[in-house]
């Protein structure tokens, strides 16, 4: 599903160069539940941003669902992100002046779906996270746990094959954190590949596999598959890997 080989990321300013990732190798299988752990500043979030096509990398190779993302333009990367990836953030990142229905509608709008298709998906996603009755509520009217469940509904409404979660329970109390983790596990059981970045060893322990990043280098790796097989480079990356 996700393969990074020798990926580096260097942030440069006029004064300093910061190596956030140094030859990172990670392979995530289809349907896997992976936890990425590591101390603050180790490069976990940089890994997640690169995996989510939110940032470019300085060197190395990255294949997402068989598509080599190096050199893809902004339109193609955005389409790939929209169709294949769902994001769950620590601070939920719901848009404050949209109600839940409209928040979940955002990624579907960018996919150009019909109104009826969007409605079906939004209602289905809210049903899955137990917020069907709150679809007209605004984020400020919900608890933190409800907001995170809404964010999960937004992430899964478009049926992405990969869920990327950055400290998804970091802002929640233990009860709500458990609920959120249960939802993520359910989604994984239904076939979604889940990658979470976390500090929390208890949370990491619930994943099928852990990858530890220290100083931009991944440890505890399982062997990565070779990238020598032909890379699929579809003319329309939007439909790649389907």
């Amino acid at each position, binding site marked *: 599903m996700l393969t990074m080989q020798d990926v580096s990321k260097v942030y440069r300013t006029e004064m300093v160069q910061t190596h956030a990732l140094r030859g990172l190798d990670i392979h995530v299988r289809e349907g896997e539940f992976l936890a990425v752990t590591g101390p603050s500043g180790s490069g976990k979030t940089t890994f997640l941003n690169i995996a989510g096509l*939110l940032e470019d990398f300085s060197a190395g190779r990255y294949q997402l669902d068989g598509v080599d993302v190096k050199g893809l333009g*902004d339109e193609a990367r955005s389409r790939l*992100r929209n169709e294949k990836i769902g*994001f769950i*953030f620590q601070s939920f*990142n719901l848009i404050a002046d949209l109600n839940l229905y409209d928040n979940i509608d955002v*990624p579907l709008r960018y996919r150009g779906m019909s109104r009826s298709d969007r409605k079906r998906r939004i209602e289905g996603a809210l049903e899955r996270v137990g917020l069907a009755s709150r679809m007209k509520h605004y984020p400020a009217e919900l608890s933190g746990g409800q907001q995170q469940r809404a964010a999960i509904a*937004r992430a899964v409404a478009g049926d992405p094959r990969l869920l990327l979660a*950055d400290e998804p329970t970091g802002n929640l109390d233990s009860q709500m954190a458990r609920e959120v983790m249960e939802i993520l596990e359910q989604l994984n059981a239904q076939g979604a590949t889940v990658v979470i970045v976390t500090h929390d060893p208890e949370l990491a322990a619930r994943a099928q596999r852990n990858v530890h990043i220290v100083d931009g280098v991944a440890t505890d790796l399982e062997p990565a598959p070779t990238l020598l097989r032909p890379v699929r480079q579809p003319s329309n990356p939007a439909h790649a890997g389907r």
Partner: protein
Amino acid sequence: MFPRYFYYVDLALRSFRRNRVLTGLMVVAIALGIGASMTTLTVLYLLSGDPLPGKSETIYAVQLDSHGPEGYRPGEEPDTQLTRFDAETLLRARRADRQAMMSGGNVAIEPKRAGLDPFYADARYTSADFFPMFEVPFAQGAGWSAAEDAGRARIAVISSELNEKLFGGENGVGRTIRLEQSEFRVVGVLGRWRPTPHFYDLNTGSYGEAEQVFVPFSTARELDFSRSGTMNCWSETEGEPEGPNAPCSWIQFWVQLGSRDQASAYRDYLVSYSEQQRKAGRFTRPPNVRLRDVMQWLDARHVVPSDVRLQTWLAFGFLMVCLLNTIGLLLAKFLRRSQEIGVRRALGASRRAVFTQFLVEAGTVGLVGGILGLGLAWLGLWAVRHQPTEYAALAHLDLYMLGATFVLAIASSLLAGLLPAWRACQVTPALQLKSQ
């Protein structure tokens, strides 16, 4: 594609509700700029419009240089009016499709209607082709013929306002009116007609109303009707300066020529006529003629007041200042939403989608500003109508300028939105999502 634009408009309206004060400031800035520029632009548009749309390029003003030798400078602009001798000669020659000589004047009217005192009215003394050449609309009757010109017929065409005043709006054709103590038979009543500018005679005002009475030039001269406008004489005259051979220019002469070739041939004819007159001793200067179509004529005569042009430039300068303010406000508004931009990018919005979304928002601000600006322009034109200027009464928004208001408002705000929208689409999503 279009549903996405509707979505962006919906987002823009939500954004307005969220930042009412900032949005209000932008709307007011654009409205002020649009109001000021559309007020002055409307006045400029009305004053520089084509008085004969679709036909003006076939109608030409004739100029000849019949002055004496004094003060001659080669190539200088000849007089804008002709002598009576030249006008009558050119009229008789009939070298154009149509031709008309004319002059303005004032006539005393003695109404037969009870309770109505005698009054003066603006008049035009002209020849038969005036009406068809300028496509003058008739409500009743028609103009007169060349034979009636030659016969110095006592006939008149009157305006619909005068017809209303004299005959209570009944059909005035066939009835008589008393002009300067002579009886005239009304042969035509005009429909609504106000050529703007008053192109065919700029000596009696550039933007005045059309005259109320039209009589044959020959008849007016026979009855010695008083004339108005400018007259230029360059040597001593024997008898009246309006006499057939007086060295005075005071008559406007217009011709209709259907093609550029005809215009060229007519210009050659004017040169040849000037040479002929020079040989005969009437003209002392080398041939110096002008043949300008209506719009060229108005341009050459600088009909649009220079202060109106200046005001228009100033108003557009003000609009630029308003737009610069709007750019600053849009930048502040858009960049305050960096988190939302980051989220949208993470959810699949491309840079282009973000750029378009914010540009649509800027355009929507422009549309609202345009509506308010339209109200301000309406107020501005109301103020212009209350100014003591010749063109005051013309200051009204027509459909064309109404559309132009919105086009200008939206185009201006899109222009103002380019930089802020560009900056918005350059927001780094990872940075925004991480910073939460």
